[in-house]
């Protein structure tokens, strides 16, 4: 400890950074891309990378809220249903008056946030375990979807949503731009605000946190609301990218977001982690999926390969998530 002062601060910081989980995950993603790019034709070209990042943006958006929830000691299994509700919901809002489409999108995002808030209410006030609360919420939303889906055929063309799905400002897909913005905000909130500190405290020891004068209920509701919001954003982006929302569009994102969070080194037990890891975690998942798609094998073998890759990469990058 005494010699710690001798090494300059930035050197220690750099050493810490190089050994950190997020950086390792980035290295793993880069290595997979390079190896695949060298061995498979067409894999890892600029266009392909850009496309995979675009896909990763969706997982990344969902994972942003999921990261907050997991660090806060919870887990959100309703993100898939929220993605679906918002992707299916936007075209159903009959707001022709607003030509830009902003109003409909804002309304849906408010709704998604509200759903998250309800999750938070259940967890904070009814003291229902997050896994049960959000699972029940997902079930509940399925009921809502039966009413909504296949209903009226208002195929409103929403310019904002279409822009999100198609536009490439400065050559970068709008979805990626959105992801960058959300990432920066998430990282800021998590690491640069007292609110972020409260999340870390909550996940590590809720009892001590509440006895330390932190409003645990408000914090809980806020992180679930944030998760609802980012899932809602992902739903809007999905709608833009697919031109059409459909029931089931969000299903893959429950496990994908959790996997991205954990692969990124955030402890599933709560209290430690960073969104900086979930970002390459999302890219990693998309990369593996892409690899599996271009490999010619029977469905069984493909599934086995997919699982083995996750396991293998976890060995390389997931060390930080160890605890106890």
């Amino acid at each position, binding site marked *: 400890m005494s010699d710690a002062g001798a090494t300059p601060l930035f050197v220690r910081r750099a050493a810490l950074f190089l050994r950190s989980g997020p950086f390792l995950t980035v290295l793993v993603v880069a290595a997979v891309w390079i190896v695949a790019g060298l061995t498979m034709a067409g894999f890892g070209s600029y266009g392909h990378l850009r496309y995979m990042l675009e896909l990763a943006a969706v997982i990344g958006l969902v994972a942003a809220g999921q990261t907050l929830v997991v660090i806060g000691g919870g887990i959100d299994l309703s993100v898939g249903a929220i993605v679906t509700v918002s992707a299916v919901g936007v075209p159903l809002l009959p707001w022709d008056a607003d030509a830009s489409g902003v109003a409909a999108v804002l309304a849906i995002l408010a709704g998604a946030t509200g759903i998250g808030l309800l999750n938070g209410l259940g967890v904070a006030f009814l003291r229902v*375990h997050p896994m049960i609360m959000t699972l*029940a919420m997902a079930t509940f939303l399925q*009921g809502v979807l039966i009413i909504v889906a296949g209903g009226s055929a208002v195929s409103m063309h929403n310019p904002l949503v279409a822009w999100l799905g198609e536009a490439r400002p400065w050559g970068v897909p709008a979805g990626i731009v959105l992801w960058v913005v959300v990432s920066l905000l998430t990282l800021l909130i998590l690491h640069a605000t007292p609110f972020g500190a409260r999340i870390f405290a909550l996940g590590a020891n809720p009892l001590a946190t509440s006895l330390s004068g932190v409003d645990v209920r408000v914090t809980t509701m806020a992180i679930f609301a944030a998760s609802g919001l980012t899932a809602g954003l992902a739903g809007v982006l999905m709608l833009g990218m697919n031109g059409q929302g459909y029931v089931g569009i969000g299903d893959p994102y429950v*496990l994908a977001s959790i996997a991205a969070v954990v692969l990124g080194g955030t402890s599933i*037990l709560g209290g430690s982690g960073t969104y900086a890891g979930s970002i390459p975690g999302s890219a990693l998942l998309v990369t593996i999926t892409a690899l599996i798609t271009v490999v010619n094998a029977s469905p*069984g073998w493909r599934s086995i390969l997919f699982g083995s890759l996750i396991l293998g990469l976890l060995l390389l990058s997931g060390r930080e998530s160890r605890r*106890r």
Partner: protein
Amino acid sequence: MSGSDPVLSPSPLYWPVQRQRNRGVRALFCVVAAFVAIYAYLFPGLLSIGGLSKFCQSWFPLALVSMAQAILMLTGGINLAIGATVSLGAVIAATTMSGPLGAPGAIAAVAFAGLGIGAICGLIVVRLRLPAIIVTLAGSFIIGGMALLVLPRPGGEIPAWFSDFLAGGTPVAALLLALIVLAWKLYLATPLGLSLYAAGENPVAAYRSGVPVDAARIAAYAISGLLSTGAGLYVAAQTGSGDPVIGQAFTLNSIAAAVLGGVGFLGGHGTMRGAIAGSLLLSVMVNVMFFLGFPPVAQYVAQGLIIIGAVALPQIGARGRRA
């Protein structure tokens, strides 16, 4: 719990301990009992041998996987590969049962697969100290892939006598469940089994007390695998065939049942009886909603509310008492 009279009991410690453990799940027991009563009221046929048998048949696999999930949650883990493992058990049963080794061979193959897969998962989680949630998620793809290799599409065959024996008009499922519960009680009465709680709640302290922590946890994974493939075998018998994706829904349902039953995520908290009661609630709920004539929309909404309610009400009640 008829034999729990402390005076007559040979052991002055065992039964009182058992009774203590009922405390946390009493509220759930009441909820479950109420649902079973409503079900019996709506469908009096439940009280016949045939009715009871059929109901137990549909509940039995869920009860097994809930136990499989609970045992891992007691060690502080979680298993997202349960669904895939059930599927694998089912396809192994359906492909080997009409083979040269017949039913005994098939049962042995299923048991071996379950124990082996569980033990490997356990080894990876415990020895490499990786998070269980993601290891078993990866495991679910690998195991699911294996199921697809064994049987690429639904098919295979279970001899009719075997199906009729396990899932005919007799309450064999109920009997099996009782046997498995008894086996579980026996296991919990072994040093390794009883170590589960200590290893789950505070592994470091348990290790210092001389508990074989790693062995207890790996054994739990193996048992979990065995129960899962066992559930698969039963599903195969019940359906008379194998299906490589039949188990998918069991993963989330088993977690829901265990958590409903009061099993905690951090290890060492909860009881198996709670998890079994949770699975019974999930299972009986489906039938109650049917007999109440709920349309699908209401089924989803009610299911969500019942699950939240079953967890929240005891909480609110407990808080009311404390005040």
